[in-house]
C-alpha cells in the first residue's frame, strides 16, 4: 500500500476513534478500550476490502461483516458513519432511549449492520452460516468477522472452529483482536485461551499473525486469506486495547467505562493532534 493511502486510512481510523469516544461519552456508558483497538482493522475492511454500497446497504451479492465482539459497537457505528451509511452526528445518540444506535448492534435498525450481536460467541457462528450460504448459492461474496481474544473462552466459538474447516469455507476470514485483556484482567490469568494460533491450526484453519495497527500487514493478511483455498483463515491481530489514546492504552479499566468530561476532552485532543500531524504529511 502506498504511503499516502496509509496516511489517509490512519486519519479515517482516528476519526472513527473520535466517533466511538463521542458516542460512549455522550451515553456515559459503553466500551471504549476494545473499540479503539479494532478501529484500524474496521477502517481497513470498510474502506479497502468490503464490496458494499452505503447507498444500498442490502445490495445483492455484497460482502458480509459481523462484529462478533458486539460490545465494541461504538467502533462499528463510527466506521459505518465515516463510510457514509449514516450521519456521524448520530453518534451522540448512542445508547440513548429511542436511538437506532443501540448499545449492541441490531440487524434491521442500523444501515450496514448485518447481524444483531452482543452475546459473545454467537456472531462468529452466524458469520459461518453466511459463508455457507454463499457456497450453497455458488456466489463469490466473502464473509468477515472480528472476535475478541477473551471471547475465545466461549465454547461455541470452538463449535464454529470445527464447522468452518469441515465445510471448507475458504470465503470466511475471522480476525481475533488479541489485545490480551478482558474485563477481569489479563486473558492468560482469567482463563488462558493461548496458544491461539496453534489451536486454530489444529482445528484446520489457515492462520496468519499480524499487527492490528499496521495497514500493510492487514492488507497482506487479507490477500493471503483470499488466496487460501479449501480452508477458512484466522488472522490473529496483536493489538493495543485503547489504541491511540495514551491513558487508555493497555488499561483494562477502560474496557467498559465511559470517560468523564476531562478525560474525553484529553482523548479528543490527543486524536485531533494525531490527525493534524497525519494531514500535514499529505
Amino acid at each position, binding site marked *: 500500500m502506498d504511503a499516502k493511502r496509509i496516511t489517509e486510512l490512519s486519519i479515517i481510523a482516528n476519526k472513527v476513534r473520535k466517533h466511538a469516544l463521542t458516542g460512549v461519552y455522550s451515553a456515559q456508558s459503553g466500551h471504549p478500550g476494545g473499540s479503539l483497538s479494532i478501529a484500524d482493522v474496521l477502517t481497513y475492511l470498510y474502506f479497502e476490502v468490503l464490496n458494499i454500497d452505503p447507498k444500498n446497504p442490502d445490495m445483492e451479492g455484497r460482502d*458480509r461483516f459481523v462484529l462478533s465482539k458486539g460490545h465494541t459497537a461504538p467502533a462499528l457505528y463510527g466506521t459505518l458513519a465515516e463510510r457514509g451509511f449514516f450521519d456521524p452526528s448520530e453518534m451522540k445518540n448512542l445508547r440513548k432511549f429511542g436511538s437506532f444506535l443501540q448499545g449492541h448492534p441490531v*440487524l*434491521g435498525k442500523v444501515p450496514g449492520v448485518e*447481524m444483531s450481536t452482543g452475546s459473545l460467541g454467537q456472531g462468529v457462528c452466524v458469520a459461518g*452460516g453466511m459463508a455457507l*450460504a454463499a457456497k450453497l448459492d455458488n456466489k463469490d461474496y466473502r464473509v468477515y468477522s472480528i472476535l475478541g481474544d477473551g471471547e475465545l473462552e466461549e465454547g461455541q466459538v470452538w*463449535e*464454529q472452529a470445527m464447522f468452518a474447516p469441515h465445510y471448507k469455507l475458504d470465503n470466511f476470514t475471522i480476525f481475533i483482536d488479541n489485545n490480551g485483556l478482558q474485563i477481569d484482567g489479563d486473558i492468560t490469568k482469567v482463563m488462558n485461551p493461548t496458544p491461539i494460533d496453534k489451536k486454530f491450526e489444529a482445528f484446520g484453519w489457515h492462520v496468519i499473525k499480524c499487527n492490528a495497527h499496521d495497514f500493510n500487514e492487514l492488507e497482506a493478511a487479507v490477500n493471503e486469506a483470499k488466496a487460501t483455498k479449501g480452508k477458512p483463515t484466522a488472522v490473529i491481530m496483536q493489538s493495543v486495547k485503547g489504541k491511540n489514546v495514551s491513558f487508555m492504552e493497555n488499561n483494562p479499566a477502560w474496557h467498559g467505562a465511559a470517560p468523564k468530561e476531562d478525560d474525553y476532552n484529553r482523548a479528543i485532543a490527543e486524536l485531533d493532534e494525531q490527525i493534524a500531524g497525519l494531514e500535514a504529511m499529505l
Partner: protein
Amino acid sequence: MAKQATRASYGQALVKYGIPNKNVVVLDADLSKSTMTTKFKEACPERFINMGIAEADMMCVAAGLAACGKIAFASSFAMFAAGRAFEQIRNSIGYPHLNVKIGATHAGISVGEDGASHQCLEDIALMRTIPGMTIINPADDIEAQLAVKAAMEMDGPVYMRFGRLAVEDVNPEDYKFELGKGVQLKDGTDVTLIATGLLVQESLKAAQMLADEGISARVINIHTIKPIDEEIIIKAAKETGAIVTAEEHYVMGGLGSAVSEVVCQNAPCPVKIIGTEDFGQSGKPAELFEAYGLTVENIVKQAKTVIARK
C-alpha cells in the same frame, strides 16, 4: 385409524414441501435418524447440513443462512434445541426476527425410556417468552405436515414441537390447517377440554367418557400456542364456564398458562391445568402418563372438579 409419530411427519413434510422450495436448507445436530430429517438428507443431500453435536452453533449458523435468504430448518431434540440453545434462539434468531424454523422432536415425557434428561417439559414455556416467536405443537400426522408447510410459507421464526410416540389421527383427511386458529373438534356446553399435541386424542376420549355420564364437554385442539387463538378460548369460557387444559409439558408456562392468561383477563372462569409437576423418569410412555396424570381418567376427574367450582 392411522398412527404415526409427528417427528416422522416432520421428515416427510420436509421432503414434500422442502424439496421443491430451493431456499429450504435443513440442519441437524447428529440426530437425523431420530428427528427423521434423514429423509430430506437422502433426497437432497446438497441442502442438508450436519452440524455435529453442536446445537449452539447450529442455531447461529441457521441464523446466518436465514440472513442470506435461506429458510433454515434447525432440527434436534426439544431439550437441546429450546433448552441448551435457548439463548442462541433468543438473541440470534428471535431478536433479529430471522426466518429460522426450529424442528424440535422428542418433546415431552413420551420420550419414555431415555428418562428425565431427555424429556423436555419446559420448551413451550421458554419459547413463549421470545417476542415474535410462533409456536406450533401439532396433534397428529396431517396437522404436523401442514404445520411444516405453514411455517415454511410464513416469514419469521417458528418453533415446531414434535413427539417420538405414534399418535392417532384426530383430524380428517381433508383437514385445513390455519396458523393461529384453534380447532373445535367436538361441541359441548358443560365444560371445555383444551389440549395440545398428544393430549388431544386423550381429551377426545375423555369427552366421550363424560358424555356417557351425561356431561357435555367441548374439545378444542390448540396447535398454535403462540399466537394463541384468544377468540375460541374466550367463547369457550363464556359458553361453558369451566375449562380443563391438558398438555405433555410442565404446568407452568405452557398451554395451561397461555389459556389462563386469556381467561383471567377476558372471561374469568374455573380452570384446571393438567401437566407434569416434576422431572420425569424412565419408563414406558403409558406408565409415565399414568404416573404423571396425563390420562383420560384424570381429564374426566378434573372436568368434574372444575364443573363443581362453577
